[in-house]
């Protein structure tokens, strides 16, 4: 077997692994649902009020919803991939990374058809590698930029953003927490954002350690499902602070493709309810507990 194929095969299903083929179909539906939901929630974002962007967002909603009809889902994925490319083109360089992650998923779903026997495994392998590479590099980049070793980044986020303060008030000693929250807006001299707490330092350093480790363990057949479950827990923990729950939903569905059993299928209904709820709350401008960032 040629080297590229052997490398790809690392992420392939185990001999007795079940459920993955059906999961791919439900993952496709989820990505289309996610794209439609994200686009619907973006319609009222002031920065996106240009007519071309509005047109694209509305088109993405229609294509995403149409794709939920199984016989249309493959072509909807192909059209959606082109529309998201157009959206990225007009939002560069301010495009969020998770939109690019969505595009990569759509690109694979546009290229490969899980209903064809010789393409389903390649699709699974490609998506698994994508998730593993994503996890590994999110951790490595944190190491390279070096603002996690002393908790500087998380200290800054706690000081300046309520969503992170809500989470880290349970981790940081009260005196330190109050000091951080009193620092005020970012300007020369503001800080220090280092926190005198072993627990906080452990949390800060465990972020990149976990991400890099998960990236590797997701590829090892023996540890794959345990790494995926741990990573799902990690994503949920992160979203308690970051509240980027749209991204979180995409990430969880990517990780479910590592878990034996038809979990993408079983949980699809829950994600439909989740997006419906977000869209309704968005239109009613209510329910602040489900605040989210696009």
């Amino acid at each position, binding site marked *: 077997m040629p080297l590229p194929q052997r490398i790809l095969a690392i992420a392939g299903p185990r001999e007795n692994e079940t459920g993955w083929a059906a999961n791919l179909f439900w993952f496709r539906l989820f990505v289309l649902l996610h794209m439609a939901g994200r686009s619907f929630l973006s319609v009222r974002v002031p920065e996106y009020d240009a007519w071309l962007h509005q047109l694209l967002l509305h088109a993405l909603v229609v294509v995403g919803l149409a794709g939920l009809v199984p016989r249309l889902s493959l072509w909807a994925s192909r059209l959606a991939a082109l529309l998201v490319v157009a959206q990225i083109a007009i939002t560069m360089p*301010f495009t969020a990374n998770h939109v690019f992650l969505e595009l990569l998923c759509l690109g694979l779903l546009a290229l490969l058809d899980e209903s064809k026997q*010789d393409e389903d495994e390649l699709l699974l392998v490609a998506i698994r590698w*994508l998730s593993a590479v994503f996890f590994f590099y999110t951790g*490595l*980049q944190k190491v390279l930029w070096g603002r996690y070793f002393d908790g500087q*980044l998380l200290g800054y986020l706690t000081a300046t953003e309520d969503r992170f303060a809500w989470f880290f008030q349970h981790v940081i000693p009260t005196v330190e927490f109050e000091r951080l929250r009193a620092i005020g807006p*970012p300007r020369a001299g503001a800080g220090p954002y280092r926190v005198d707490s072993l627990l906080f330092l452990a949390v800060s350093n465990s972020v990149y350690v976990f991400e890099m480790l998960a990236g590797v363990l997701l590829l090892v057949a023996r540890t794959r499902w345990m790494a995926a479950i741990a990573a799902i827990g990690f994503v949920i923990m992160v979203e308690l602070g970051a509240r980027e729950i749209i991204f979180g939903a995409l990430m969880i569905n990517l990780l479910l493709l590592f878990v034996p059993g038809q979990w993408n299928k079983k949980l699809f209904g829950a994600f439909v309810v989740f997006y419906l709820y977000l869209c309704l709350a968005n239109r009613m401008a209510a329910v602040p507990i489900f605040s989210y960032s696009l």
Partner: protein
Amino acid sequence: MTIETKRRIVWLGLVVLALWPPLHHAIFRRFDLSPWKGFGWAMYCVPPRVINTSPFSLDDRAPVSTARLNDPQRRAIYDAAGEFGRRRAEFGTLVKPDELAEVILELYPQLMGVEITVERVAVDRASATFVPERMDRYQYRRER
């Protein structure tokens, strides 16, 4: 398209995906770009940077004062400075304050030229405090 072609596309895509983050890191450091953007998976790696912009007269090096301007004129300068700061924070040194200089030279016809200093303030790794990390100066002379 055959499955072999599709396999090659997937392989190539994954290789690019794996090579881009290290390249992203090198390029973004070289041009002082914000690591949050550019699909290098470096979001939440560093606190956002603050950009401070100050214009000085090239005639006498005095700060350009907005005290004598009316509200719309003052707003024109603040808007141009704000937009520049926003883009500079993301694009780094690839963005220069050309438009801000243009607005200033238009509002101050007596100036021979303007120097715009651009200071980037960011959280220092060692002190964990916002410190000025980089200062760039851009000079614009009025065309005669």
